[in-house]
């Protein structure tokens, strides 16, 4: 499997609210990330718009429905559609989440958590091998945010991700907000998480906002509906110092503001990354 070369730029998710900005203007980003499934359609305006954006900017395909952790294996029709889109777009890379979304009977359309067991690791690795062979390329998988852990867990999430990347040759999409959310929800150290990730396998970083927890459980929820909070920016600075230049993007899926607000947030990410990088050189 051919590796994925590093690409260090700053980008945004391509959302319908900003189509016109991207089609008619010169938006100061290095790439856009799409939700793959939104464009896995037969035709029409979504694909036509995406083609126009693609003619200007590199595209990353980020999926939510591969269900790489499904015990029943992967959906061939889904993979076929995904591959067709990849052939059309020639993306920088294709990513999805370390999670499962479906059983043979139902699809939750939500990123459901996996138990971190040796059995799940083996299954996930088999599924990743299948997906990467089918698509003919290495993929990135994103650490999820989660709201519960399983009594059966045998390893930490970062240990699972490390071993998964080692066995399959896949790369990692590090969602810094998800690390923060899960660390708060499950009581582990976000610093330990960062230290435990194989830095050389990380090709992209996501930054997003979350909804604060409410009494009595105080569970943070990964809602992508607001700006990145200070604690996540601090964690991002640590990640930059640890990883060096990595493609970074702001991920907003709800309560989407005008584009200038997201670009200002992205500028803040640039500043933090720039400040953090001398620490790598030192």
């Amino acid at each position, binding site marked *: 499997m051919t590796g994925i070369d590093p690409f260090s730029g700053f980008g945004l998710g391509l959302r319908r609210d900003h189509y016109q900005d991207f089609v008619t203007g010169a938006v100061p980003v290095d790439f856009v990330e799409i939700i793959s499934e939104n464009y896995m359609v*037969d*035709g*029409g305006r979504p694909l036509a718009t995406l083609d126009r954006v693609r003619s200007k900017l590199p595209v990353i395909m980020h999926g939510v429905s591969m269900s790489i952790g*499904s015990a029943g294996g992967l959906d061939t029709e889904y993979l076929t559609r995904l591959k067709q889109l990849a052939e059309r777009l020639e993306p920088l890379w294709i990513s999805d989440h370390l999670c499962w979304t479906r*059983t043979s009977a139902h699809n939750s359309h939500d990123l*459901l958590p996996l138990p971190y067991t040796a059995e*799940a690791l083996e299954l996930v690795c088999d599924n990743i091998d299948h997906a990467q062979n089918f698509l003919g390329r290495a993929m990135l998988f994103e650490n999820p945010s989660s*709201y*519960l852990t399983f009594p059966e867990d045998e390893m930490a999430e970062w240990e699972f991700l490390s071993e998964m990347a080692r066995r399959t040759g896949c790369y990692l999409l590090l969602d810094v907000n998800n690390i923060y959310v899960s660390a708060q929800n499950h009581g582990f150290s976000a610093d330990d998480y960062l230290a435990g990730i194989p830095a050389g396998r990380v090709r992209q970083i996501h930054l997003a906002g979350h909804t604060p927890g409410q009494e009595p459980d105080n569970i943070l929820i990964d809602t992508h509906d607001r700006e990145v909070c200070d604690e996540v920016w601090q964690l991002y600075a640590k990640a930059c110092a640890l990883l060096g230049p990595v493609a970074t993007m702001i991920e907003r899926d709800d309560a989407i503001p005008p584009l200038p607000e997201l670009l200002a947030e992205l500028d803040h990410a640039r500043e933090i990354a720039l400040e953090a990088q001398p620490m790598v050189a030192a």
Partner: protein
Amino acid sequence: MSTLAACQADFMAQVLEDGRPLPNGWTPRHAAGLAIYRNAYRARLVDALRDTYERTARWVGEDAFCAAAAHHIIQTPPNSWTLDHVAEGFVEVLEQLFANDPEVAELAWLEWAMHRAFVAADVVPLDAARFAAASADFEEEDWGSLKLKFLPSVHLRDMGNDVAELWSALDSDDFTAQNYVLPEPTPMLAWREGLRPTFMSLTKSEGQALGLMLDGVCYGAMVECLANAIGEEEAVMQAGAMLGRWLGNGLIAGLN
């Protein structure tokens, strides 16, 4: 079944069903986490339905729409990778739930047809010049056996209500409920012009003719059917005019 498969089957059942006993070893903290997944599942599906059936939601009101959406989700939990499929079958659910208000399902049908047209495959329609070239050497029997291939975005149905008027009214912030019942059922055509989904009402005879051709009936049989109602000479003239309109509106993809 593997341990993981059993775990996922149980977890999915927990997400789909309220009040299911928690798995062994789960605590109230697990229940709180599970509740977030359960709420997210329902909210996402209702949002997907509202996104597709935005005008229907406005017409029936938020509470009634959410109740209908919940009914649909419980009755038909999604099993496809695409959220688009969640909207399938919702028109039929609305037909049952709003049996005394048929404009609800009719409006929903139009929204679903427009949504499907929006993402239908890109096909360059046959224009009049290409059709003329393709049919230049037609003998009479060729016309009789002619079948048409339509764009995948073309959808047709009879409406008992003036859904076109209702659609426009719902674009306004201050629409008022009124009676939209038509004197007689009227065919409604939805399709995509270029990248823009659109719709129009047809006459009864044109709707009947188009319906026959969409069902794969040949041109000659369609003309015969028209002739039964309006006579042969008039039927030939009207069928020709209809064919010209279908070409002009970009409904026809090719000849079969």
